[in-house]
């Protein structure tokens, strides 16, 4: 008899697993994709993954601070997206391209 509790009894760990998987997917995007805008999207994905774990902790510990943190993170994420996209626009203006391989100048 297979123990199906793991499928039926949803707990903190489930949300944390979901968060971890999303985070890793976002990270893979950051590492692998060459389009700067998709890169930014992947970062958003990572931030969202973290948000899930914050909210999950908040719920299972009964403290509202987790949600406050999510609130802050969202604001920061929005700001970051704005700046990142502004940068992408600038880069596009210069190179007519947003491929990350044009940014191989990040060395002394």
């Amino acid at each position, binding site marked *: 008899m297979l123990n199906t509790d793991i499928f039926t009894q949803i707990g903190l760990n489930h949300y944390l697993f979901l968060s971890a998987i999303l985070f890793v997917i976002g*990270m893979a995007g950051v*590492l692998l994709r060459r389009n700067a805008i998709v890169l930014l999207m992947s970062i958003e994905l990572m931030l969202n993954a973290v948000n899930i774990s914050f909210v999950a902790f908040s719920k299972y510990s009964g403290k509202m601070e987790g949600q406050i943190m999510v609130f802050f993170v969202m604001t920061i994420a929005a700001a970051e997206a704005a700046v990142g996209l502004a940068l992408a626009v600038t880069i596009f203006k210069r190179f007519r391209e947003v491929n990350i391989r044009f940014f191989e100048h990040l060395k002394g």
Partner: protein
Amino acid sequence: MSHQLLISTLILSPLIGFLINGLRYKRHSANVAGGVATAAAAISFLSAILIFMELLAMPKEGRQIAVNFFEWMTVASLKINMGFLVDPLNVIMILIITGVGSLIHLFSVSYMHHDEGAAKYFAYLNLFLFNMLVLVLGDNLLVMFVGWEGVGLCSYLLIGFWFKDSDKAAAGMKAFVTNRVGDAAFLLGMFLLFVSFGTLNFQEINNMVPADPTFSWLSPLTLGTLFLFIGATGKSAQIPLYVWLPDAMAGPTPVSALIHAATMVTAGVYMIIRLNPLFLHTPNTMLVIAIIGGLTAVMAASIGLTQWDIKKVLAYSTVSQLGYMFLAVGVGAFTAGLFHLMTHAFFKALMFLGSGSVIHAMHEEQDIRKMGGLKKHMPITHFTFLIGWLAIIGMPPFSGFFSKDEILWLSFHSPLGHPALWALGAVGAVMTAFYMTRLMALTFWGKSRVPQDVHPHESPALMTIPLIVLAILSAFAGWLGVPHVIGAALGHLPNILAEFLSLNIKPIPNLAEANVTTEIILMSVSVGFALISAALAYHMYVRNPELPGKFTEKVKGLHNFVYNKYFVDEAYEGSIIQPLVQTSKSIWFYVDVNFIDKATYWISDIIKGGGSLVRSLQNGNLQTYAMYVAIGLVMTLTFILVR
């Protein structure tokens, strides 16, 4: 307090002179610089006289002024004070140094007035005086060593003063390097004394010397005194390290008079006299000193017989006379050694300055074959040189007679002496009389061999005044130390010098009662032979000028051998310098180039390779950097979880 002030003035006045001239050597003309330097030396001399008065005013037993300026260093049990001590022994030295020094400064004003670097010259001369005073006044070996090195430096600077001539610069270097050999031995001696006594202070060392002499060759005190003596052979130009002094004549002539005749070269003698109880404690060292001194006296005198350069003759004469001083201290006759040091300072400075005056008159010509008959052109120089000549050949009653005779007598009579030593000294004296007469004859007497275009003239007053003063001193200074036997004959004249020094100098142990007859006989023999030899030289060089040529033809081989200074320089070159150079070269090639250099290249290659390896990590790609962050994260997490 006033003592401190006096000694400060004495020592610092030349240093201030050096600073004034040294810092403004480009702007000071020869006259200004000479004035400043001479004034500095004169102030020093006045302080020396005042200190001398002070000493005389003190009771006989307590005649010493000790001044401690500051504690120089304290390392474990080694405690060195920058302390100075004036006592009857070194008050004589400072009077000689500052007195003769002032006269030579005065002489230099005129001698150097046409030289471009005159201010530099006077600065060096003042610096020399300062260092010499430190050497003589220091109350411990280390302070003395500071002065010892300082005078070596000044000697080097002044020998190579005309450094644009590479021969002269090389002579300076030769002096410096030869002195370093001696200095190294001096240091070793100092270490041994420190190990034995735990102090470097002269008075403490002299008080701690055991009463009974040591007859072992290997005792630390014997070795220590031997090393100190080797140091002295370097500074005072004795066998085997005398070779630098003749070459040192490359410097300006007043320098030869001050440094290489009157003061610096006597430092070794002074050092031994200063430590006389210690040296008396080690008879083996004394024997070595006496033998070396006697041999040097004869050997240098024999070379002096053959030289043609007026300054070279005087240089070998200086080496020879220094040999007498070492012979004196070697047989325990410290008073006689100091006495000869003093009289020699007077008459040899006089003769060097006289030769300077001659060279000046002859337009820088130093070869005595091109002189002759200068007597009528330069009467004052001739007259003063004549007195110097009479003093050095030991003609009574000039100063050289008293001092040299006392040395010869004591080398015969002292229990540390030996008739053979007396014989060496006597042979040296006979040779001295010969070469000095030869020098006089070729320079001043006989027919003139001066080239047509040179018109010798008497030197200006600034040069002749020091000559006259030194001539007076050379003539009469001998009466300070009248030998007992003559004093008795003349109505018990006291030996002023010996009495004055009695506090500092230990008497020769087991000295027998002097046999008056023997003393008189020996004295007559040495003086008689010297006079005969002088007469012979006069006969050979004035009466029959072709005679010396014929004579040298007969003993050509020997003459060549002596004329080339016994090939000592060549022997050193072949046996010491060349092997050293070759060894150094091979070490340079096999060790330095092939091993050390390559090792450093390997290291640099490894670092370079590692650098280029690591550099490829920083490729400028954003995502690669992100990957490093991810890998770092993985590692950190792994570390945390595994732990």
